[in-house]
C-alpha cells in the first residue's frame, strides 16, 4: 500500500442525487408547459422563454464574476428561474422588459443575498411583481390564444378571466386546456399538472404545499360564493402552487410549516382575488408567505424522537 489514505467523517456512502439533478428534474417538469404555451401563443413564446433563460444565466455568470465568487451556473438554478419568469409574462411583452426582469431576479433578488439557498423570496415571482408595478400596462396586456394564426388586430385584452370587469367567462374545458388569455405559463392547467405529477413521482416536491394551497383556495372561494373550480383553474394558481410555492429555498422545510405555508398562501390569494383591486393574487401571496418562512420554521420544528418536554441536562 503506497498511496496515502483519506480520512473523513462518516458516512462514506452517498446517494446519487445532487442539486443539479434536482434542478434538471424541475426543468423537465416545465417542458410540457413550455410546449403547450408555444402552441397556444406561437413562436414568440419560445423567443420569450429563451430570452429570459439566457439573460438569467448570463446575469448569474457575470454577477458572480463581479462579486469574485466561484461560478455556480452549472447548478442549473438560473435556468429554472429564467423559465419560470417567462411563464409569468404576457406573450407580447417588450423583450427588454423581459431582460430587465431576469436581471432583477438573478442579481437583485438572488445573488445580492448570497446566491442559491440564501434568497428569501422567490426570484422569478419577485421580479414579476417589480415588473408589474413598474410596467403595469405592458404586464397586463394579454393576447388571445391562437391569435397568431389569424393575425387579427384586436387580439389583445387587458382582461384575464379573473378580471372583475370582464364579461368573458370561459368554460372549464377551455380553462383546463389553456384556451384563455393570460401569462405564458398560467393558461394550460393540463400540462402544469403533468409537470407536478412528474415532480412528485421523482420525489422532488411533496404534495403538502400544492394540496394545502389549492385546497384552501377551493374552500375559501366556495365560502365567499364564487365558483371554486373556476378559481383553481384560472390565473397563476396552479403554476404558483406547483412550481413557485414549492421552491425549496423559500418554503418551509418542516412538514407542519409546509401546511401553514400552503394555507397562508391560499388565504392571501383568495383575499386579493375576492376583495382586492388586483385581479390576481398568487404572486403576492407567495412572496408575502416567503417572508414569513423563517418564523414559520422556528415555530414548527418537530419534536425529537423520545422528546419528553425538557432538554436533557445529562450529557
Amino acid at each position, binding site marked *: 500500500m503506497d498511496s496515502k489514505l483519506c480520512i473523513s467523517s462518516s458516512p462514506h456512502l*452517498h446517494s446519487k442525487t445532487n442539486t443539479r439533478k434536482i434542478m434538471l428534474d424541475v426543468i423537465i417538469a416545465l417542458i410540457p408547459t413550455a410546449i403547450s404555451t408555444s402552441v397556444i401563443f406561437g413562436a414568440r413564446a419560445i423567443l420569450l422563454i429563451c430570452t429570459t433563460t439566457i439573460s438569467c444565466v448570463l446575469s448569474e455568470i457575470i454577477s458572480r464574476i463581479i462579486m469574485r465568487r466561484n461560478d455556480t451556473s452549472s447548478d442549473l438554478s438560473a435556468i429554472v428561474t429564467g423559465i419560470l419568469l417567462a411563464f409569468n409574462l404576457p406573450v407580447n411583452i417588450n423583450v427588454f422588459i423581459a431582460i430587465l426582469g431576469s436581471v432583477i431576479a438573478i442579481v437583485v433578488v438572488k445573488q445580492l443575498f448570497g446566491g442559491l*439557498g440564501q434568497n428569501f423570496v422567490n426570484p422569478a415571482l419577485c421580479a414579476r411583481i417589480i415588473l408589474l408595478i413598474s410596467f403595469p400596462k405592458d404586464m397586463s396586456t394579454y393576447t388571445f390564444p391562437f391569435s397568431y394564426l389569424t393575425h387579427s388586430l384586436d387580439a389583445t385584452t387587458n382582461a384575464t378571466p379573473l378580471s372583475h370587469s370582464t364579461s368573458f367567462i370561459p368554460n372549464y374545458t377551455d380553462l383546463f386546456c389553456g384556451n384563455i388569455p393570460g401569462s405564458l405559463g398560467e393558461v394550460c392547467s393540463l400540462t402544469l399538472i403533468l409537470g407536478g405529477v412528474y415532480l412528485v413521482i421523482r420525489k422532488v416536491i411533496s404534495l403538502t404545499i400544492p394540496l394545502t394551497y389549492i385546497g384552501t383556495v377551493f374552500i375559501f372561494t366556495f365560502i365567499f360564493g364564487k365558483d371554486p373550480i373556476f378559481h383553481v383553474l384560472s390565473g397563476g394558481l396552479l403554476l404558483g402552487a406547483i412550481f413557485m410555492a414549492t421552491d425549496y429555498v423559500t418554503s418551509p422545510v418542516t412538514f407542519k410549516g409546509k401546511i401553514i405555508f400552503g394555507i397562508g398562501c391560499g388565504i392571501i390569494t383568495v383575499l386579493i382575488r375576492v376583495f382586492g383591486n388586483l385581479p390576481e393574487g398568487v404572486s403576492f401571496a407567495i412572496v408575502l408567505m416567503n417572508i414569513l418562512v423563517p418564523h414559520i420554521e422556528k415555530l414548527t420544528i418537530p419534536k425529537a424522537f423520545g422528546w419528553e418536554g425538557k432538554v436533557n441536562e445529562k450529557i
Partner: protein
Amino acid sequence: MHITGFLNLSVPPFKIHGGIKVPHLKNTSNSKCEILKDIESVLIPMQQHIGAPCIPIVKVNEHVKLGQVIANSENNFSAKIHSSVSGIVSKIDNIIMPDGSTTKAITIESDKKFELYANLKAPSIKSPKDLVNAACNCGLVGLGGAGFPTHIKLDLKNNQNIDTLIINAAECEPYITSDNRTIIENINDVIDGIKIIVKTLKIEKAIIAIETNKPEAIKILDKRINSKFSNIKVIKLESRYPQGAEKVLIKSCINRVVPIGKLPADVGCIVMNVTTIATLSKYIKTGIPLVSKCITVDGSAISNPKNIVVPIGTSIKDIIKFCGGYKSPPKKILLGGPMMGICLADDNFPILKQNNSILALDERESNLSEPSICIRCGKCIKSCPMKLTPLFLEQSVKNNDIDSLNKLNIMNCMECGCCSFICPAHRPLVQSIRLGKKILRNSKTIKKR
C-alpha cells in the same frame, strides 16, 4: 397518537420515522466464514469498549496462553481483555486509536500453537448474578459495533421490569454480513443463548429482528423457531437503514419510544446483538472467552471479499493479505460499515472486539466530492430517524449557538448518517453535528468550573 400505529392494529413491524434506502451491497452473504490463524503477532489495545480503559496485568516477556486475562479494570464499567493467541508478550506501549485518542496496547508474538489457558472452565448459570458474571468473565461487549459492556446491560436493577428481549439481527449497514453468517453457521448457539437469557432473567418473550434482505438466515430462523418456542418470535423488518439502531429497532418491534437520555431497560426491554448472544452462549458451553471475531472484508479495493474469523488484535494488513490483497489502490480503509464506520490512517491497526467489518474503498467509491450550498430541500429532516433538523443544527454549529444546539436536541443524534447520505448538496452534516456535540460538551464543563 400515531395514525400508522392504529392502522397496523398493533402488528409488528411498526412504522418508524425517516430512514433511507441504501444499496445492500451484501456481496459476501453466501461466503462461508474462513479461519485465519497463521499470523505472527497480535496488537491488543486497552480500549475496546465504551467505559474505562483496561490496565495490562501481564509483563513484557511473559508467556500467555489463549483465553488468559491480560488486562482488567477496577472500574466495573469496563470489559476484561483476554489474550487471543498463545505466545510471548513482546511490547506494551501507547498507540493512537482511530478517533485520535491514545491508549496502551499489548503486542503478543504468537507461537501459532493456540494453547488454551488451563483455568478456563464453563460456568454454570443458576441465577441472574451468574449470567452477569459470565458476561463479565467472557469480556463480552456489544458486538454490533457500539462495544457497550454486556455485563452492565444484563445487570438489571431491582425495580426494572423487563418483558422483552430483542435480538438485533437487522444488520442494516451495507456490505456487512457477519451477523448473517452467525445465524446461518451458529444457529444453535443463538437459540441456546436466547433460552438461557430469557430463562435466567425471567423475560416473557424474545423477538429476533431481522431485515428481509437476508433470505437464507430467515429461512433457517423460520425452520428452527417453530411452535416449540412459543416465547420466541421472528420479526422480518423492511430493509431500511438504520433499522438496526437500538431505539429505532425498539420502535419497530414493540412500538415503544425510549425517552431522550434513557435506556431501553427504562421501557422494559433489552436489545442484544445476535453475535453477542452467540458468543455468550459459546462461553457458557465451553468457557472460551471472546478471543476471535467473525468479520466481513469487502469494498471495491479488495481482491477476494469474504467473511473470516480472526483472533482479536490481528492487523488489518494481515487480514487483507489473506483476502488476496488490494485489487486497486485503496483511498479509504474503514473499520465498520460505510454508513458509520471510522476511517483509518493506515492498515497496521488491529481488529477490535466490536468490529464487524473492514472495508477498503477505491478512489471512485470513496466519494470525495466537494459540498455545495444548502438548498433547503428538507430531505435531511425527512430522513432523520431521531426527528432532528440537521440543516438547522449545521447552521447553529456554524454560528456557535449553544442555546440553539440544546433546543434542537443535538445530543439525540446517533450519527447514523442518513442526512449526509441523502443531502443533494453533499453537505457534511454528521461532521458538523459531531463538532456541535463537542462544542456543547465543552461549554458544559466550562460552566461547571
